[in-house]
């Protein structure tokens, strides 16, 4: 962290800690990972009442141009309410909801030890053996179940998240609006997919917390143990099958599956056996299509940020995703 931002961050912290001595912020370079937020790990030292304090923290700030336009206040308030709930979610510390202090909306959270590895199930950086990888895959299902089992009313999540009458319709409406708002050109294939989803949407069922982006790349691991699930910016109330569809999306199999050992059917069977719930296969297919429609919306948002010179990330278009979406709905095309 450098210059004006250092001073802004120190002022932001001082406003929350009050008059303390020896305040020191030790920051590193912007961390890799996360296309939607700027991530800055830092250590905070201060003295208060003769005691020395040290906290490992993590700042997540909205970038100038993102792939997701979400509200830091909602994410912060959800995580604050989840802190005493039985779920491995990160602890949030401070919020600059409107960016008036840190330049853009941001939140500070506890920084956890552990490593992050998007492709750990394929071996990743640590090269765990297949049994260890299968164990990690199994823990990822437990993590998802943990989220779906949350008592969202008891935790007060309905104070910050909308309760959809029809989760599938709400999801289509949300991502269709993103595509409408962000796309720089007409998208006939995505229009077709939207209409397909409207015709094939599942009936409303039980409402649960939906994380919206469960994947090893959003988890911190301690060896082969899942520690904490990060990145709750797409959390919402909806249909639990949405998360199951997200993690069984054929496009993401390399992140979530182990060929021949832990494939989509194994994942769904494990979920059903451990929860006693049945995942309707037609509904699952709908949510797998929705997953790629959502990814197309995210890519289109990235393309707009790139074409508007708001990000240095060079984005290619959503062509491959639209091809996959057509393949997923292919039997209707004849």
């Amino acid at each position, binding site marked *: 962290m450098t210059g004006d931002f250092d001073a802004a961050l120190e002022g932001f912290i001082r406003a929350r800690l009050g008059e303390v001595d020896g305040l020191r912020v030790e920051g590193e370079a912007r961390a*890799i990972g996360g296309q939607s937020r700027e991530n800055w790990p830092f250590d905070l030292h201060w003295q208060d009442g003769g005691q020395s304090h040290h906290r490992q923290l993590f700042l997540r700030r909205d970038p100038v141009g993102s792939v997701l336009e979400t509200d830091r206040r909602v994410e912060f308030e959800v995580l604050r309410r989840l802190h005493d709930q039985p779920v491995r979610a990160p602890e949030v510390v401070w919020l600059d909801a409107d960016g008036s202090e840190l330049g853009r909306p941001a939140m500070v959270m506890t920084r956890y030890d552990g490593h992050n590895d998007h492709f750990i199930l394929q071996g990743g950086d640590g090269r765990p053996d297949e049994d260890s990888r299968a164990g990690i895959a199994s823990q990822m299902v437990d993590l998802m179940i943990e989220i779906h089992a949350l008592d969202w009313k008891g935790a007060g999540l309905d104070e910050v998240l909308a309760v959809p009458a029809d989760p599938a319709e709400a999801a289509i409406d949300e991502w269709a609006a993103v595509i409408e708002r962000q796309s720089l050109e*007409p998208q*006939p294939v995505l229009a077709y997919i939207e209409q397909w989803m409207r015709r094939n949407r599942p009936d409303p069922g039980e409402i649960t917390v939906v994380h919206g982006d469960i994947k090893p790349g959003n988890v911190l691991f301690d060896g082969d143990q899942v520690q904490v699930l990060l990145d709750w910016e797409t959390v919402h109330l909806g249909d639990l099958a949405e998360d199951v569809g997200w993690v069984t999306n054929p496009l993401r199999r390399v992140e979530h599956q182990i060929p021949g050992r832990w494939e989509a059917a194994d994942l769904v069977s494990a979920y059903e056996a451990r929860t006693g719930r049945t995942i309707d296969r037609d509904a699952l297919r709908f949510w797998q299509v929705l997953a790629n429609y959502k990814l197309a919306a995210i890519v289109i948002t990235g393309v707009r940020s790139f074409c508007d010179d708001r990000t240095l990330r*060079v984005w290619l*278009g959503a*062509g*491959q995703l639209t091809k996959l979406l057509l393949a997923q709905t*292919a039997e209707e*095309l*004849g």
Partner: protein
Amino acid sequence: MRPTLSEQIIGARRVLVELAAPEVSDSYTQEQIAFAASALEHAAARWSEVLPDLVTDIRALEEVLGMEPAVLEEAVPGVVDYEAADEYHRSLRAQLTDEIMSGSEQSPAVRAYLADSTERLR
């Protein structure tokens, strides 16, 4: 003509990958260089196909929309004005999008176009 456009793009990519990237220690910057290099690789492989694919898609869209083929070579016979063709293509895609949203997505012609267009989508 040499160097071809592909050779120039690949040359620029080599500067990024072989010269710039090894000098960078910051992981965020390394990641952005990797994305830029990937985009250049894509451009080098694809640029020569863009105009033929555009014309093919225009003809397919005209057919599905029931329109007569437009003359795309207005200024120089045999040479397509890319910018004008791209603008025309956009207008055709907008028309098809409107038709799909108004409920014609299940017509055989629209379905056939969508199925065929998968091969042109990159």
